[in-house]
């Protein structure tokens, strides 16, 4: 293995970890094409298996964790990751909410195993998929499915110069109005989750004239019941509303609580 370059010995060490996930948030880091070579110049990439073979020994100054905890092995591994990192950041919907794979938390995992695999007994998996903060103390969380690469850059820049990252927590509507997009809920009568979803994506869906589906998770103190009553007036059933809330951040409060509420109000369906 190549020796550590002397010029890089003093730089802060960055570690990037993967747990249960799609690799999309790590890819968002590699998608910083214009800034990538400057970034690897400013920090020592000490642990980032998707990008490099070389592994430097801990401790690391900053650890970015992608993915949720869904296996017994991951449950143990995250404890060591916490011990190895001074500042630990959960990045993306899986790490902050359990991700889409947290849909198992409402289901019978054994039935799930039988649905997908002929030999379910070979699998070692937990009953639930949960975010990192459910297992260890997390210093900061970055939302999004996937995270916004500019928010990654803001986070790393802020940490390098020692200030708080500037990550807004207000609703998507603010961003949407700023951009002057027509409201898809008001003008088209489509069920947009923008009013209860945290900003960060750049109002992509309304920009393509489709309703927001909540991939950045709940904003600070969302009024879910008010929005749901509007959806109800548009003809959407409690079952529809439950389903809309249970996607990539479904297991994150208060989306979780609200989806449970609408589940109880579901009309018994033919099936």
């Amino acid at each position: 293995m190549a020796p550590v370059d002397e010029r890089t010995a003093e730089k802060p060490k960055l570690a990037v970890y993967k747990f249960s996930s799609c690799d999309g948030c790590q890819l968002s880091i590699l998608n910083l094409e214009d800034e990538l070579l400057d970034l690897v110049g400013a920090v020592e990439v000490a642990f980032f298996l998707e990008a490099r073979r070389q592994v430097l020994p801990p401790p690391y100054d900053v650890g970015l964790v992608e993915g949720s905890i869904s296996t017994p092995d991951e449950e143990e591994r995250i404890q060591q990751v916490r011990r190895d990192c001074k500042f630990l950041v959960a990045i993306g919907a899986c790490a902050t909410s359990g991700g889409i794979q947290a849909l198992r938390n409402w289901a019978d995992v054994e039935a799930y195993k039988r649905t997908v695999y002929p030999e379910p007994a070979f699998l070692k998996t937990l009953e639930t998929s949960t975010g990192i903060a459910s297992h260890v103390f997390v210093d900061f969380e970055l939302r999004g499915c996937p995270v916004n690469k500019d928010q990654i850059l803001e986070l790393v820049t802020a940490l390098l110069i020692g200030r708080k990252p500037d990550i807004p927590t207000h609703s998507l509507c603010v961003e949407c109005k700023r951009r002057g997009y027509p409201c898809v809920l008001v003008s088209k009568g489509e069920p947009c989750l923008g009013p209860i979803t945290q900003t960060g994506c750049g109002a992509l869906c309304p920009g393509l004239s489709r309703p927001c589906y909540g991939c950045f998770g709940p904003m600070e103190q969302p009024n879910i019941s008010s929005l749901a009553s509007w959806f109800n007036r548009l003809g959407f059933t409690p079952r529809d509303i439950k389903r809309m809330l249970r996607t990539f951040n479904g297991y994150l409060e208060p989306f979780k609580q609200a989806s449970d509420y609408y589940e109880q109000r579901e009309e018994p369906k033919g099936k």
Partner: protein
Amino acid sequence: MSNAKNPKENRKRTIRVGALARVEGEGALHLVMSGSRVEEVRLEIFEPPRFYEAFLQGRDFMEVPDITSRICGICPIAYQSASCYALEKAMGVFDQLDTPIQKLRDLIYCGEWIESHVLHMFMLHLADFLGYESAVSMARDHGGIVRRALRIKKAGNAIVELLGGRSVHPVGMCVGGFYSCPDPKDAASLLPEIKACLADMVDLTFFLAQKVTYPDFKQDYEFVALCPDDEYPMNLGRIKSNKGLDVDQQEFGEAIEERQVEHSNALFSAIRGRGAYLVGPLARLNLNYEKLHPVAADLLPKVCAAVGKNLPWDNSFLSLPARALETVHALALAAEILESYEPPSRCRIPIAPRAGYGGHGTEAPRGVCWHEYRTENDGTVSFARIIPPTAQNQMCIEQDLYEMAKQVVDLEDEGAAMRCEHLIRNYDPCISCSVHFLKFERTWHEDPAKSRS
């Protein structure tokens, strides 16, 4: 991993690489050798299962492409397009998809091929050929190459963003077409950069063909790819092989079988009654080279001459120049589509939900990604099955490793592990996708007191 030992001794040794680097997802490699004889090869996939096929049941059909996209952050378009086509068949609108929608589907897929291929070639794979541990180290000596590659990768992402808003889990494609179509001004503004990148990619393809040494390696592969009549494969076409497979899209699920083994969370795919097959750039190129875009077709004989091998390429190490040629093809095709782009009269076919069945595969950067769905009257999904490319290549990778293990008998463990890892990366394995895929392990079985496995 243990120290180098004299491999001539007739001992049993196991080599294990516990966590493979520069692959997407988590896997390991396990080799057991007895002297110069290879006893066991295992590609272990410990990427956790996420049970997509299970929780897709009960979802609305319109939600499916947004959900399956999350199987893989590297190739979300592959999952979205396969989901969309399969569900368009289920909803009975597949035949109504008109040319402008198909062209936009090809355009966004070109973006993903460019982004994914360049990421793999220059950030993950080239370091193996040039002897670096990563592109980060490689950039110190080859900064210019890395910078040019990053620029092309960015152009690929820009194409995906034009149609989908963002490059990871884009939001533009839907069952029936697209939510909205790009503004011609935005499409036109991309064109100069795509053309500049095309010229540069042609140049980089010569670099890869002329300056990189490809190890000798040969296997009798069954290559499987979409084979449309009149274009290089991407979204449409019958599924064929060089050994007689020739099926309609819907029949592919019946033509193969999926097997589960204890050491992997990915299901192994095999052609019924035959066995291992290979999907991806080599399969596509070998079966469809005469349909490459003229810019890439012109390059092909020169690349063959430079690497010293005419088609068919039966050496998995040649997947690197195959990816380069496909990147040229995708850039040239994207430029062509952008140049002639006019906003279509409709970007979406209206759909009335119905009970139905549809199966369809498209060419992900790593190979055929095949989906099938059943729906109920109100459009609720009642059954889903997804066959990702890396699961299909898993058996081929193990067979390649078996062959490679024989060639590395005389190497110490570190060197042997590097060669095997390099071979695995030939397949650009996407482990996140296939789990529903990997670790390198080689243990020395000898004096137990000295064993360090």
